[in-house]
């Protein structure tokens, strides 16, 4: 079973939930920018939720299926068609042999995920299939997909087989209310916790950041989001030794313009950390289109955890519901 790449698009890479356990060696985590969309795509085709998918960026990717295949497309809405007909998103779909799937252009969001029942059959590198382009490891030959590449698909789980049997069952309402998890609005409010060096910034910076809008510049990528807006400054200059950072860390380099660390971030950093985007809002941040405006809101650690636990419960319930409907 395989898939042929007819057009690579802007940037299409194999990504799973990420490469964990190797940050102490300086190996970056990588993985899906929008982990909720990745997990839901996998759940909808009966895969393990951390299985590898394709992450498609903004537009242009075109794939051809060499066999009948069960897939699910989640994340941004890229005006996706199967043989010219609009493809349904956020539900399992059976695509026929030789059909062509095309992601035209982003109407909403900036990253789409496509999961294949059986997963992508490529070797794991350091316990993950995620692509780490700079080190040329993981994913498909350690690089982004190119025209002519062929991806092999793995063996379907019993859950995937059961899903396939029930696809046409009108009693099963195949839909996921993804709005519960991801905010696709144009000017989202991103919730932020105080960073470890928040107190080192002057009063004005501490207030301005939460009052004024920031723009996502076009120099943003999977490694980091560079923002443009009011400059943030320290009360007095100080030197910081390098230490661990994480997904969503808001660093302030000497320019005063914030950088938010994303999926392909370095493992350590030496810039002062002004804030930290809450985990539950990282997928919404990942879906922002370049030049979008963002507003930030300060929340407490307790609030951040409450939202995160609510979202995890939502995903857990969805898994249970699919299982129940298929086997009862």
């Amino acid at each position, binding site marked *: 079973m395989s898939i042929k790449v007819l057009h690579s698009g802007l940037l299409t890479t194999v990504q799973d939930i990420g490469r*964990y356990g190797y940050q102490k060696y300086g190996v970056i985590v990588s993985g899906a920018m929008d982990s909720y969309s990745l997990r839901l795509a996998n759940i909808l085709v009966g895969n393990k939720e951390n299985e590898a998918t394709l992450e498609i960026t903004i537009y242009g990717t075109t794939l051809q299926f060499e066999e009948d295949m069960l897939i699910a497309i989640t994340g941004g809405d890229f005006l996706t068609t199967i043989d010219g007909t609009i493809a349904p998103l956020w539900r399992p779909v059976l695509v026929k042999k030789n059909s062509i799937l095309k992601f035209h252009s982003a109407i909403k969001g900036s990253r789409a995920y496509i999961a294949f029942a059986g997963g992508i059959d490529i070797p794991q590198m350091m316990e993950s299939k995620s692509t780490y382009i700079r080190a040329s490891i993981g994913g498909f030959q350690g690089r982004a997909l190119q025209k002519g590449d062929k991806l092999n698909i793995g063996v379907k789980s019993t859950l995937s087989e059961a899903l396939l049997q029930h696809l046409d069952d009108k009693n099963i309402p195949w839909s996921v209310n993804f709005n519960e998890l991801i905010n696709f609005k144009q000017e989202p409010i991103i919730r932020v916790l105080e960073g470890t060096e928040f107190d080192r910034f002057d009063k004005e910076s501490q207030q301005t950041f939460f009052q004024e809008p920031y723009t996502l510049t076009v120099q943003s990528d999977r490694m980091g989001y560079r923002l443009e807006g009011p400059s943030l400054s320290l009360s007095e200059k100080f030197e910081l030794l390098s230490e661990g950072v994480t997904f969503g860390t808001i660093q302030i380099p000497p320019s005063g313009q914030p950088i938010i660390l994303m999926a392909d971030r370095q493992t350590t950093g030496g810039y002062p950390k002004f804030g*930290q985007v809450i985990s539950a809002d990282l997928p919404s941040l990942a879906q922002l289109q370049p030049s979008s405006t963002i507003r930030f809101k300060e929340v407490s650690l307790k609030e951040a955890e409450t939202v995160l636990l609510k979202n995890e419960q939502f995903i857990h319930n969805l898994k249970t519901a699919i299982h129940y409907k298929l086997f009862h």
Partner: protein
Amino acid sequence: MPHQQIKATMKPLGDSALIVQLGEGMNPTIHEKVKNVSELLTNHPFEGFIELVPAYNNITVYYNPYIVHTSQLGASTAFVKVANHINHLVEQVKSSKNESPRTVSIPVCYGGELGPDLENVAQYHNMTPEEVIQIHSGEECLVYMLGFAPGFPFMGGMDTRIATPRKETPRLSIPPGSVGIAGKQTGIYPLETPGGWQIIGRTPLDLFLPKMSPPTLLQPGDQIKFVPISPSEYLEYKEMKQ
């Protein structure tokens, strides 16, 4: 033997990680604590533990708050639960002197095309390039941590007589194996990356070994001895690898 009292303070790094602070600044004694606590935590993880990253004077601990919550009773935040676990462990750290550190020799071809900033560094200190080489390869350095890129060693203990500020404009691309100086630190680039360090030479060794376990040539705690080699020896090393 009296126990070495270790004091740890915890601060959240967002909602899914925390920093265990074990001291300030850069010195081998604090680094020893970082190593001991890291080892203890790796051997006694809590439910929901993902991984940890040791640094100069602290450890970043990554966890899954959902698993921490569902595996431990109580209304407090996952941060408090994890912090309690770590505090409890830190109390048990004994002043065990680790077995003597490994010394790893790193052959370096200094200057020329492989070390384009050697002349600048020498001029900056009113020395000859030979003196810089002699000083850089004279004393052993300690690997404090790995970060920035896979297998990139942050080293301390370089002779401060050759401490040199970073370049004003970083290079867009630095070849793998390049040995550089940034302030009082010296380091080696494992992959081709942009960077602002003063490049004084290059080693033919691979620092990132993705198919090995562990996947890096150097580990925190290693003592590094730089050994000057000639351009022809450099080429011999390179050929031997193929």
